[in-house]
């Protein structure tokens, strides 16, 4: 045996040291004893290999102790992994965006309805007719804009506009109106501010809280008091 054979023989012995490869059968034991005898003979005649021989013997003993220790185990994770590997639900991100788009459209449309300040004289009939035409145009524009986001959002925006129109100006004002001296409704900028505020707050129109928040649109007159329910609670 030369020094190269010495190293190779030691590595073959150490290959068999891991738990699953360890063979303590009689044939394996006899083969191991024969190899170790050859290693000892070479180590006695080779000073450098004698040192390595002692080191490898210490390594083998340490490996046996190390193999007998508990292995690092992961925390119980089967359920978590199976859940993580299951198909992801369809993203719902588009819905809030669509609703927000619809609400924003409604808010923009409502901003067209800003009436004159209350200390100004009542609008003349011609001005009233122009306002009705503008409202009608805004209604259609709002509907088209909201439809690009989503149909439910469009329906909501339309319902909000209709409610505000019916409440504040009367249904007949949407079409070119006959001359009358009906008083202009409450401050539409307040409506726009509230609608936009709820849209920015991310209210989901189908939720109970959102219904409560937008409930003022269905009241006979614009409620000046702040809603008690928080849109954030949806």
């Amino acid at each position, binding site marked *: 045996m030369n020094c190269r054979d010495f190293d190779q023989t030691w590595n073959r012995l*150490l290959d068999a040291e*891991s*738990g699953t490869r360890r063979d303590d059968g009689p044939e394996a034991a006899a083969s191991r004893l024969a190899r170790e005898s050859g290693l000892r003979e070479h180590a006695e005649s080779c000073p450098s290999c004698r040192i390595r021989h*002692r080191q490898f013997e*210490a390594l083998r003993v340490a490996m046996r102790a*190390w193999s007998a220790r508990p292995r690092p185990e992961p925390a119980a994770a089967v359920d978590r*992994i*199976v859940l993580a590997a299951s198909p992801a639900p369809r993203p719902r991100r588009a819905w809030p965006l669509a609703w927000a788009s619809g609400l924003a459209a409604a808010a923009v449309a409502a901003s067209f309805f800003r009436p004159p300040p209350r200390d100004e004289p009542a609008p003349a009939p011609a001005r009233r007719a122009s306002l009705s035409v503008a409202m009608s145009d805004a209604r259609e524009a709002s509907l088209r804009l909201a439809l690009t986001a989503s149909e439910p959002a469009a329906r909501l925006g339309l319902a909000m506009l209709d409610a505000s129109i019916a409440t504040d100006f009367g249904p007949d004002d949407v079409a070119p109106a006959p001359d009358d001296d009906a008083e202009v409704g409450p401050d539409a900028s307040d409506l726009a501010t509230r609608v936009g505020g709820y849209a920015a707050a991310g209210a989901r129109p189908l939720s109970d809280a959102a219904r409560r928040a937008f409930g003022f649109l269905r009241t006979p007159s614009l409620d000046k008091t702040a809603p008690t329910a928080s849109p954030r609670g949806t």
Partner: protein
Amino acid sequence: MATMDDRLLVEAIRAGDPQAPRELIARFQGVVFGLCFRMLGHRHDAEDAMQETFVRALRGIFGFDASRPIRPWLLEIAANRCRTAMALRARRPPAADPSRAVDRPDDRAGPHDPDDLAGELELALAQLRPDYRTVFALFHEQGLSYEEVARALGRPVGTIKTWLHRARAEMAAHLAARGVRC
């Protein structure tokens, strides 16, 4: 399910058997975690890498060649996840959070228990360069063959043998320097 071989297990997963993924994880999580733990040296990072490994494997099971053994394939995925994690770790600034410290034994010189041979070997293992440490752990701790280690790490078998032999030689020298004798 307990006696199902790996090939049937893959077919069961593909067929939608709800228990099959659980069986796959239960069967291989030890070896996958062992590789991740040795490569990353941090328990939580290793568990994250293990989870990513199984998630990717389950989602990609239809692309797996079922005629081949699944364990090296899983370990190959795990090794890739660990390399990605190590690259991300190298790019981020050092964390002040002590929980991010690598789980390595204390290798400072000083009094030690000469009878704690397993602890001494763990210290020696921690001193190895990462490639050597991973090969040693996969071969001796997880019981993989040279061929399986080579496939998992994407290296030739000859390279794996060389790394393992060098790892042993370095560990033997380290133990001697620590005064460990049999």
